[in-house]
């Protein structure tokens, strides 16, 4: 046991870990937002609600069908992703030719509907989701105690983030995707089904949000408003990082999570607002965002 700036190391590392956990959710969500924005030119306000849907899907699977955490990790994102694709086909696709703002307004409305329905059905109080048995307990790392589940969340989200980065930046499919982002008409002329690609991209982004929701369920309670509180912070993360680069979204997400965790140790009153303050500073110094290009 030792102290750093008068703070016991245990508390410091504990908050750092919590910061990394929050950071992995920021990274996963801002990654999904960036991928969706790249293809659809729409800011998906429903993202928070879809994250919440992922958590609820895991909760319902466990309590009504007895399907546990590990299958839920696959089923929930697919189900919510399909739901997202239906929304894209039935609603979002009519807005691509209009001002971006209509996409924001539509997805905001959808978020209100989903959240309202969840609140009517389950109330605003959080519902507990049991941690999978295989990830109970923890490791003593010498300088701190690492609960297994938290270690798993950080590891899994890093892996997912880098897999996404790899697919988009290093594979043929990713090359089609990036090309379609730049010039959809031309890519379509080459015989690639761009509308299908757009639908799948939206489904994928939404699936990422749902996956984050499943991973969050055992840590935070499952509650209808878990997404709306988070999505505004994620918007700030996206403004700070800029949506131009996948790697930028990942680095900014984790980095801000850690900064937020440290703020909780040294200046707890500001822990809710520190990310917004950083956003303001970044806007003053580098208006395009840390990884953004000026449009």
């Amino acid at each position: 046991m030792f102290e750093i700036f008068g703070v016991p190391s245990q508390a410091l590392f504990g908050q750092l870990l919590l910061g990394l956990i929050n950071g992995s959710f920021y990274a996963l969500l801002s990654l999904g937002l960036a991928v969706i924005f790249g293809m659809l030119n729409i800011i998906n306000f429903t993202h928070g609600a879809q994250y919440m849907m992922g958590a609820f899907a895991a909760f319902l699977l466990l309590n009504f069908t007895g399907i546990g955490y590990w299958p839920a990790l696959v089923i929930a994102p697919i189900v919510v992703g399909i739901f997202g694709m239906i929304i894209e086909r039935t609603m979002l696709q009519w807005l691509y030719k209009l001002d971006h703002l209509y996409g924001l307004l539509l997805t905001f409305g959808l978020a209100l509907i989903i959240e309202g329905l969840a609140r009517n059905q389950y109330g605003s109080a959080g519902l507990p989701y049991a941690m999978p048995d295989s990830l109970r307990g923890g490791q003593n790392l010498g300088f701190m105690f690492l609960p297994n589940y938290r270690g798993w969340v950080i590891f899994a989200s890093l892996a997912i983030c880098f897999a996404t980065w790899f697919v988009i930046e290093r594979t043929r499919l990713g090359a089609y995707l990036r090309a379609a982002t730049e010039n959809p008409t031309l890519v379509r002329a080459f015989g690639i089904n761009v509308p299908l690609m757009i639908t799948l991209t939206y489904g994928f982004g939404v699936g990422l949000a749902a996956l984050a929701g499943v991973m969050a369920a055992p840590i935070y309670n499952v509650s209808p408003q878990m997404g709306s509180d988070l999505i505004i912070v994620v918007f700030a993360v996206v403004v700070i990082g800029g949506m131009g680069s996948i790697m930028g979204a990942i680095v900014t997400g984790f980095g801000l999570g850690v900064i937020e965790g440290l703020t909780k140790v040294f200046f707890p009153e500001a822990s809710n607002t520190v990310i917004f303050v950083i956003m303001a500073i970044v806007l003053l110094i580098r208006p395009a965002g840390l990884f953004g290009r000026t449009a």
Partner: protein
Amino acid sequence: MVAATETIAAPAHSAEGRSEVIAFFVMVVLLVIAPFFIYPLFLMQALCFALFACAFNLLIGYVGLLSFGHALYFGWASYLAAHAAKVWGFPPELAILTGAATGAVLGLVAGSLAIRRQGIYFAMITLALAQMMYFFALQAKFTGGEDGIQGVPRGKLFGMIDLTSHMTMYFLVLVIFLAGFLFILRIINSPFGEVLKAIRENEPRAISLGYKTDRYKLVAFVLSATLAGVAGGTKAIVFQIASLTDVHWSMSGEVVLMTLVGGLGTIFGPVAGAFVIIAMQNYLNALDQWVTVIQGVIFVVCVLLFRRGVIGEIAHLLRIKL
């Protein structure tokens, strides 16, 4: 430069102005007789939100800027106005001016940050800044946290007119609303307003014509925030309370909804939208828990099928400008 903008503005007045003038007088007559038939407290609430929505519409409708954090100016103005009236003992007119000043200062700070980015980022930045100030309101001592500031005195207008009666209060609110409404009308029909519309249509072109568009956007933003502040301050005096509801992001969403329902970029749309939404909240009280869902459905329906809004559709059918 001034001469050039004035020649652009001139034809808009003579040809299309008549329908606006008629509609304005119809609205004034309706609002003057309304309190004798409808509960004045409901009307006052609707008028406060109508002014709030008009202020918001000045940005989205005439500059093309979607501010998703207008609750910041509305809510903080109501806090400061309530505090001024209750703790500092300000008379109502000064309390409302305190609200306006709060809106102006916050609008200057938030606006100068937000206009550094365009389009969708602008909306996200305004939302994030509003959320930051929501947390400040939650933690600050003077706001009373979850309880808000309660028991704000309505006081005596200019030290003479007692505002305790709902009827007296109503006509003060009506005067404030009409003053704000006419001020906005004046802004959008001025050479300054024409430049704003030019920025909305094609910002790079406005820049190439030599306009410092950032400065125009900032002034419009501050004006909008100030008027939202007037609305918030008035609401605090009328309802004698300032609370967290008014600074929450859902309030920012509500004002967007009102403007969308009424018609983005129409002059009378925000007023109609505010009355529709407030009436829905008051008269569908039984459906309390469904209000969020219904609001969401209205958003979706408006965006997909009904983008002109109520007033926009009427204006389109009658081929006039409203």
